[in-house]
């Protein structure tokens, strides 16, 4: 099951790239979810031992999925509201 753990690690890298480099805000939300599921996949695959996965990581992953979903919902709400106000879905580089 190492292949799943490696896949998880690669998903983290891929998602991180999107989270930081993408300009479209909804795209970054998607990328964040990819990083999250990559971390979870790594966690689960590393807890796999002789046909079963350690229940502690499983429980933590479920908690993590809920947390990630909550964050995504808030992020989507902010992205839509921001688009309604500014007419765009990018952040201007207002920080000096």
């Amino acid at each position: 099951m190492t292949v799943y753990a490696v896949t998880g690690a690669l998903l983290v890298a891929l998602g991180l790239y999107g989270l930081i480099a993408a300009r479209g805000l909804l795209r970054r939300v998607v990328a964040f979810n990819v990083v999250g599921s990559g971390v979870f996949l790594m966690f689960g695959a590393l807890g796999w031992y002789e046909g079963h996965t350690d229940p502690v990581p499983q429980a933590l992953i479920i908690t993590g999925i809920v947390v990630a979903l909550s964050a995504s919902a808030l992020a989507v709400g902010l992205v839509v509201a921001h688009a309604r106000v500014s007419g765009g879905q990018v952040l201007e580089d207002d920080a000096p």
Partner: protein
Amino acid sequence: MTPLIALLALPLAGALMAVAVPHRGARIAGVVVVASAGALIMLVAQWGIPHAAPGGWGAPLGIMLEADGLALAFMAMVLAVMAGVCATAAPMRELPTPFWPLALLAWAALNAIFVSRDLFNLYVGLELLTLAAVALVATGGDKALAAALRYLIFALTGSILYLAGVVLVYSAHGVLDVSLLAATLPAPTDRVAMGLMTAGLLIKTALFPFHVWLPPAHAAAPAPASAMLSALVPKASFVILLRLWFEAMPDAADDRLLTALAVLGALAVGHGGIMALRQTRLKQIIAYSTVAQIGYLFLVFPLAGGDGAAQPWAAGAWTGAVFQALSHGLAKAAMFLCAGLWIIAVGSDRLEDLRGLARGLPMTAMAFALAAITLMGLPPSGGFTAKYLMMTTAFASGQVVWALVLAGGGLLAAAYLYRPMGALFAREIPAFTPVPRYLQAVPLVLALLAVGMGVLSDGLYAFLQLGRPGTAEEGL
């Protein structure tokens, strides 16, 4: 119910009630403040290290909670700030109703983080804090949306990196408890795990160069929310950093890495100070000042970590950093609350609009001045004690360069705080809307507490040593 559990359950229950009965939010928060104060006094009076094992399992199967001196001191600071925030926010009509449950949730998250000994539980606490904090920024209305989004993206990046590190820790050691981790043999993946967790927490703490989200977010939120965000929120991730580096995995420390952290801290002091000098709005100045003040905290790593951890002066540096975090919290909350009152009084936080306001609202000007003394690190404030402790360590351990950072940062702080002070005490008669005296007193109390920390530093110093990692006897 033990006082420790009460401190966790009260803000949580308050938040739930504030959702169920939204128009009573302020009153509920008031009750939580009073009850928490009672619980906290009981805890401090015990003068020990109370702990709890929810579910009765204990580590590694369950989660351990422990209120050592560090946790209690931070919870006390949070309580003081929250009391101030609630007092000033209660009469503010323009605050949206969701402010109250969000503020209480952030409070619950802070307390949960300070007492938690479990790396994953810390993650859940951090996320609760993040979502509540971002939502608090968003209560600032349409103009705050971009700042809230930027904050959220940075914070989510930080927490997911932290979580990746936690995953590696569990996979290598099979435990998540800080104390149990300290007792395990180091694993080759620990470096990567610590690197990821630290990077994530640095983003959350807004250390230079990950600070770009902080000034817009803290300046855009309504003033009571800003006070919480600037004074409290970055402290949570800093406390986790302390727990990681000084308690869970002190062996992973590497001198170069610790120095790198302090270099970033020094850059933050410089950059934050210079940027604060260039702002024209008070809230921006205060927000950039937070960037600079956070920088000091990271000097603790080379001063007390690595080889330094074995030295007698480690206690001084570690305690100094904690003093800095606590006194900055109180002073910064006082400043933001002042800014909020001045916005009520003159409708703006532009420095030119604040000219002469010290005549109109003398107590707030006094509070701002006292808070400024703390941020500059002048005696007899808590900021002075912090800098004194860190400086003596810097000299004792031969790391004079960090002493220069401390001194230079103090000068910069004096420079950027001189401008708002100059405006406030200008000889002009401003036109302003009066603000009730009891509201003016709130930031003054907070600022006095920040100064009082310095005056009464002996007792606090002794208290912080409760459960301090690798306790050393060396005192002031």
